[in-house]
């Protein structure tokens, strides 16, 4: 295999594939982490409200 005159093209193709796949995966994972971070204050707020509800179940009273 190493004697093939076009081996560089094969290596370049696999390197390109790796770069594109890694770029797509990293973009999606980074986006997910950013969204989770942005949503965390709302999740905490919802948790606090859920904890407060049993103490005062009827807001009218």
């Amino acid at each position, binding site marked *: 295999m190493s004697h093939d005159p076009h081996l560089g093209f094969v290596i370049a193709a696999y390197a390109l*594939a790796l770069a594109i796949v890694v770029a797509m995966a990293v973009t999606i994972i980074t986006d997910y982490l950013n969204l989770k971070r942005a949503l965390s204050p709302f999740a905490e707020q919802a948790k606090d409200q859920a904890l407060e509800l049993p103490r005062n179940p009827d807001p009218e009273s």
Partner: protein
Amino acid sequence: MNCMLNFASPTHFLRLARVLIPLSATLTALLLGIGLYLAFFVAPPDYQQGETVRIMYLHVPAAWLAMLIYLVMTSAALGTLVWRHPLADAAQKAAAPLGAGFTLLCLGTGSLWGKPMWGAWWVWDARLTSVLVLFLIYLGLVALWRTIEDPGKAARSAAIFTLVGAVNIPIIKFSVDWWNTLHQPASVFRLGGPAIAASMLWPLAVMALAFTFLFATLYLMAIRNEILRRRLRRLSILAADAEERSAASAPSAWNAAYEP
């Protein structure tokens, strides 16, 4: 149909994605490992192309996915326009960058395969040109979602654009039959059966399956991101609204307290 629509609700999807993403990622890693082993150590070099034929194990699955993703987007576009299902728009929006990525991979590996075999990085052949048009359609769709601020309008515009662009898929598939092209005709999905040797067909099939699972994993993750993005937008609007209402009521309470 109703049951299916209920099943495809964003909440159900998030629950399902939590199970499916690790499963699909594991299958992708396993199949990619087997596929690369078969492609490099089991499949023989081609009698004419030599080792360069190993680019086929990347190029062909990427080309299949480039078209498959567009078909997925077309069905999602119908879901957006006909049933107005919230997940259909998210599914369509999440697929476009992945489609662009796999089409770029197809064009890039094709160019790297073409230079040593044809003596040119690029030729304005019908197959190559129609795939380039597909890549531009994907980029146009990504740009469309980013340009239109109203998500509803963006979804409908993108769905119409996707349906119009679907005409390019049969052109890509049959370009090698309709026109005299430098690109070779179909050698796997053809009437007389596959034209390539089994020793090369099996590694190609495993790599195609691995790429399909890779797309499925990334796609599930991207749809999950879209659902979370919509949730964040909705919650931010609600929070801003609540803040505005409390700000509006505060001065009146203040005034009331200080009225003589």
